């Protein structure tokens, strides 16, 4: 069990979090829905992210080699069955989760605001929109050029852009919330959001919009990559329980590689370079199991963060294998796809058998609401919530 000191508060935390949590603990069994409303946060959309990417992976793996655009085809019955099953399952989960989260927005809006203030939680506000974009893309019966696709794309992409403007603007203008203070590996999720939007736009053949989103994402990825590698403030920007989000390090270049592939039409050198970078970072993280040891002690929602980066990498490797045929690329693709399926299945099983652990009463995103102190100024107090 790790014990982490609570952060020196710069402002008193909104008391509602603590009281709400403590109020519901004893009445857990009777007030399930209010409990879920309280405990749920945007990080739960990791589940839908994983499922959505998995659906997309299967869609791409199972379609025969054609041009890069998703088109209506008449797949064999077997393939379409699998795809439909996976896709509908993801859709159902996403709808349920979105409903719950919108209920929370209505009834517990202050908690949503608190999430927005949290340096890790704010990035997960991108997650619902990314999930919806993915569901849209991986739908087996929708063509990108269809009107409904376009409309839905706009519906989901606008919030992404709004969030971009808000969050990226804060990085370089706002007093306390500047980048070196808030940067953490989960910030790469915002980059992923932009790149997913860019990819979907490229599928719609909206060239300019997709390049716009791509460049936005890449520029901020560059800044973020450098900042994260520098680790100015050491390892205490991220609670140990959230270490699985380190996997986002190689998720971002993978999705960048896919986005560039969609924009340029073929898996050319920049895409390859981004893919190789994410492979290297993946290898680098795999070789460091000690980094994740603390997070692996107990199952929690952060474990879902393992799944979708691997799926992303598998997707990129599938595209790579289309371009560079050969034993090595084929082996990489098979390995990564197999790994992503395994991880997803394991996570699904764990979730099914431990539903209570999904709603812990000490989630770091919910409990810590104060902005972590900027580096250089204070002692080495950790900024994480107490975990028991």
């Amino acid at each position, binding site marked *: 069990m790790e014990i982490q000191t609570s952060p020196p508060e710069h402002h008193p935390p909104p008391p509602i979090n603590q009281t709400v949590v403590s109020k519901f603990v004893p009445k857990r069994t009777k007030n399930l829905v209010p409990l879920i409303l309280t405990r749920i946060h945007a990080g739960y959309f990791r589940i839908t992210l994983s499922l959505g990417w998995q659906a997309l992976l299967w869609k791409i793996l199972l379609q025969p080699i054609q041009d890069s655009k998703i088109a209506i085809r008449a797949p064999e019955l077997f393939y379409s069955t699998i795809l439909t099953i996976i896709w509908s399952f993801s859709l159902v989960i996403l709808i349920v989760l979105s409903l719950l989260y919108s209920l929370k927005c209505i009834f517990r809006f202050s908690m949503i605001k608190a999430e927005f203030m949290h340096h890790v939680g704010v990035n997960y506000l991108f997650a619902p929109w990314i999930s919806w974009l993915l569901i849209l893309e991986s739908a087996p019966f929708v063509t990108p050029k269809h009107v409904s696709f376009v409309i839905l794309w706009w519906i989901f992409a606008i919030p992404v852009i709004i969030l971009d403007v808000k969050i990226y603007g804060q990085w370089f203008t706002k007093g306390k919330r500047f980048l070196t203070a808030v940067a953490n590996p989960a910030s790469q999720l915002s980059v992923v959001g932009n790149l997913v939007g860019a990819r979907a736009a490229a599928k719609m053949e909206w060239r300019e919009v997709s390049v716009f989103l791509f460049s936005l994402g890449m520029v901020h990825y560059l800044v973020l*990559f450098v900042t994260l590698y520098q*680790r100015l403030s050491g390892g205490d920007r991220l609670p140990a329980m959230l270490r699985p989000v380190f996997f986002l390090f190689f998720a971002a270049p993978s999705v960048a590689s896919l986005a560039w592939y969609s924009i340029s039409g073929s898996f050319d*050198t920049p895409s390859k*370079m981004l893919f190789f970078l994410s492979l*290297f970072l993946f*290898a*680098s993280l795999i070789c460091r199991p000690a980094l994740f040891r603390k997070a692996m002690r107990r199952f929690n929602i952060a474990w879902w963060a393992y799944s979708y980066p691997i799926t992303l990498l598998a997707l990129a490797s599938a595209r790579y294998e289309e371009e560079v045929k050969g034993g090595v690329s084929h082996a990489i693709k098979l390995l990564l796809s197999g790994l992503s399926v395994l991880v997803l299945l394991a996570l699904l099983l764990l979730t099914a058998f431990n539903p209570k652990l999904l709603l812990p009463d000490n989630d770091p995103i919910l409990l810590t609401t104060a902005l972590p102190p900027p*580096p*250089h100024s204070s002692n080495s107090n950790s900024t994480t919530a107490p975990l028991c």
Partner: protein
Amino acid sequence: MENSDENQSPREDSPEELPSLIRAITAHEVAGFDSPKDHDDTKVQLQSTGFHPLSASIFGIEAAEAEDQTGLSKSQRTHSVSFSMPPSPIEAHIQNTKRVLFRDTETILGSSLPNSAASYTNFGAQTKQARFYSQPMPKGSVLNQATTSGKSANLPLRNPRIEKLRDNRYDSFKTWSGKLERQISNLRGKRQEPEQGSQAKQPAQMESVPVDRYFDALEGPELDTLRASEEILLPDDKQWPFLLRFPISSFGICLGVSSQAIMWKTLASSESTKFLHVSPDVNLVLWLISIALVVIVAAVYALKVIFYFEAVRREYYHPIRVNFFFAPWIALLFLALGVPPSFSKTLHASLWYILMTPIFFLELKIYGQWMSGGQRRLSKVANPSNHLSIVGNFVGALLGASMGLKEGPVFFFAVGLAHYTVLFVTLYQRLPTNETLPKELHPVFFLFVAAPSVASMAWARIQGSFDYGSRIAYFIALFLYFSLAVRVNFFRGFRFSLAWWAYTFPMTGAAIATIRYSSVVTNLVTKILTVVLCLVATLTVTALLVTTIIHAFILRDLFPNDIGIAISDRKPKTTRRWYHRRSGSSESNVENYLKYSNSNGKDIEASVCPPSYNNQELSASSAK
């Protein structure tokens, strides 16, 4: 001090200044001699060498005496340094109290002197094995003092003992603390001895030295100068064994010379430089020389790995030296790049995979350290030598592309480019938390030029032509080169070190990139640039060669004692209060003060410390 009371065999010729000491030594030695285990050991050992058993103990005593004398006749610091090394196998045998005493320098000043003397004898008695087979080193001063102490009768026979006693101080740096040497000597035909319990010891006493220790204890652009307040584990008045003094930065010589070979090869074979009429033989000669150098340096360093693995580990943990672990592999890549055309036109592709594998694994480790935060994160340890970790990627990409491989070079180019961006930004920022950036200009800054110039050549090979990407990288390299060259008069007053060779290959790399560029854009300007840069590179290498020869043969200090790896694992207690932290890290100020301030008002080194910090500490501690 149970031994000081016994006074069995007073020695007439013992120096007057240490009567009680000698008694203590003698008594304990006899006691040790009487214990069956030691007795057997010494007997066996002596039989193998033909010495009389009794005289062995005498030798031990006298050796300890001599040791003691030489220790005490010097400064306290030396005295304490000799015995403050944690992981000696000797100390496992000594009672814990005594071992603790070794760590605290000032406690040896006081009444613990006899204790340490007794420990000396333990040292002497139980580590005969350790000493016996270690490398004899000429210790002129020790012999002189042993001579003057008046034990002339047995002096010739005593010499090996004294030398071997001296060598124990290096045991902590030897592989398995000297066990390997004993094993090897055993294999060479000496009698097998029973393993002593003391040798089981060691443990993790030499565990990884945290990077903070290096920053605290060392200073200078290459982090090889000891701060005034620090101490080292090995004697700083003696010349250490050669292997201990041989740093990994010696591979810089191989880098410098082999890159010259590549330059002359390119000069000879490129169309834009045909007007110079350079003969390919220059490349051949240089290449053969560099092969010889690589073999020699690698062999010596391999010996160091075998015999002084502990020292190699410490070099690995040194924040600057760790980058030089890439140097051997880069040197091999340079050799492959500089192969004279008369030898072979193309090399086999598998060679590339073999050469890149160690670089790949080293990278995984080092870049992962940067990324995962912790004590070796980049904002803390970034220094220009980190370029050596990055350049390997580009050199490998260049070699692979010249061999015709496609995917592998792009892989390493991508990884190198991403990490180079990070490093470049970090170094340009010169963060206040960055401990290792030299405040003044130093030849290490030339490493900035290395990565862009090699990257431009690699990209040109990958793409097939010197396109815009290559040109951008090349111009960046050129700009950095000129901005350093115009400041050349600021490169003054630095102590020469072997690592300077590693800083010459960027100049050569820039010259080669210029040659490539001039073959694409051929006009008078580029040709002049080519000639100028090649001249500068050649002159620099020649000047460096001359300096190296001067240092090697005339000044004889080419391999000084490698202070950087011999820092102690913990700060010396007396100086902890005066521990001067870098400005800007206030959290460590507070932390240090809370941890290390002691109420001992006396301090030997009060005079040498920066006043501002001291006054604060003094007033705070005197208030206690």
